[in-house]
């Protein structure tokens, strides 16, 4: 592989836009061996993708500090329907 600019891989390498779609599979360790070695080669030469990988790990770490209740997304539509039902019952 040739690296013709610092922080950028060579032109025949795996493209960065393809790497970012494989980050989770790479971290899960489910990539086929040939693809994994291609990714490893790419990472060795690409600062931007190394940073993305580090950021992915940071997000996983930060998310792990949360609880399920912290990220509950029960929405206003559900709330409105529940409130409407409860109000209907209270009228009785």
């Amino acid at each position, binding site marked *: 592989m040739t690296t013709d600019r610092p922080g950028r891989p060579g032109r025949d390498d795996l493209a960065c*836009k393809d790497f970012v779609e494989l980050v989770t599979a790479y971290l899960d360790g489910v990539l086929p061996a040939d693809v994994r070695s291609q990714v490893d080669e790419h990472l060795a030469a690409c600062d931007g993708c190394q940073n993305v990988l580090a950021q992915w790990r940071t997000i*996983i770490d930060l998310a792990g500090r*949360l609880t399920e209740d912290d990220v509950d997304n029960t929405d206003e539509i559900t709330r409105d329907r529940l409130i409407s039902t409860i109000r209907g019952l209270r009228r009785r």
Partner: protein
Amino acid sequence: MADAYRAFLERGALRPIVALLVITALLLQAMLEFGPLWLVALGVSAGLYGPQWAGLMAALGVGGLLGGRLVLNRPTTAVALGAAIVACCIVLTTSHMLGIVVVAQIVLVLVVVAVSIPVTGRLHDAVPSTIRAGVASGVGTLTWLTFLPFAFAFGVVSDRSGVHDGGWILGVVAVLAIVLLGATVRGFVRAPAGVSLEPAFAADQFRADDDPRWPGHWVDPPQPWEQLRGPVDTQAAVAEVRESITDLPSPQHDVIVARDVQRRAPAEVRDELELTPSEERDLLNQARGRVRDQLDDSLKARGA
């Protein structure tokens, strides 16, 4: 308000979802309003009205609990739930045994509430946050507008032929529910309305495929976060991640919560959400990508 009306009237995925929500609300309201009429028709003692009502109230809670865990992404699941609704309605039109009638009412309320929870989630995902409250209000109004003639028709039939014959109107509504469930259920995970399965990074962050020097590589390579604002280890960063995950649409939200918050194994998550391995990884990658974007923007803003 105009946007909310447009979202309602536009052809597409929203109509069957709204119609299904109205139908489920009709069935639920019919049981709460007219359920005791079956007991009147059967001539049971007044002391039995309390347990029947308690059963309906309990079904609201249990149905909500089940609905939170229900994943409606298979036609077979939709058909099974629809069949349960229809079966309950048939029992209500044919049976004169108190216990069976009350159980049918309780099961009907339970299933209807359970179905309405994920369908409501689908509506949530189908509309942008700016018009979500307006659409929710519109669905509520439409439900009551539909319930008024429904209640009138039910009352007329019940008055003339008895409440059991009135139950046939519930049966017609239940069949409509099956049709709408079938139309709505496909794509609950794979292509939720308004939530396109976008790549984790926007296309304009990469050079074009025909770029003579670095096709498909970064236009501006991402910078390490530590250079922007010291170690990314602060409560502010945790709060930003929490907000990002909370705002995610349901398929991505469900997967990232299961994987990164609850730290559950991929196979377990796939089984529970009924996803293929590639769907699960794609949704998780998208979710992490969106969280990364928001945190990146926030750190850049704070570091600027």
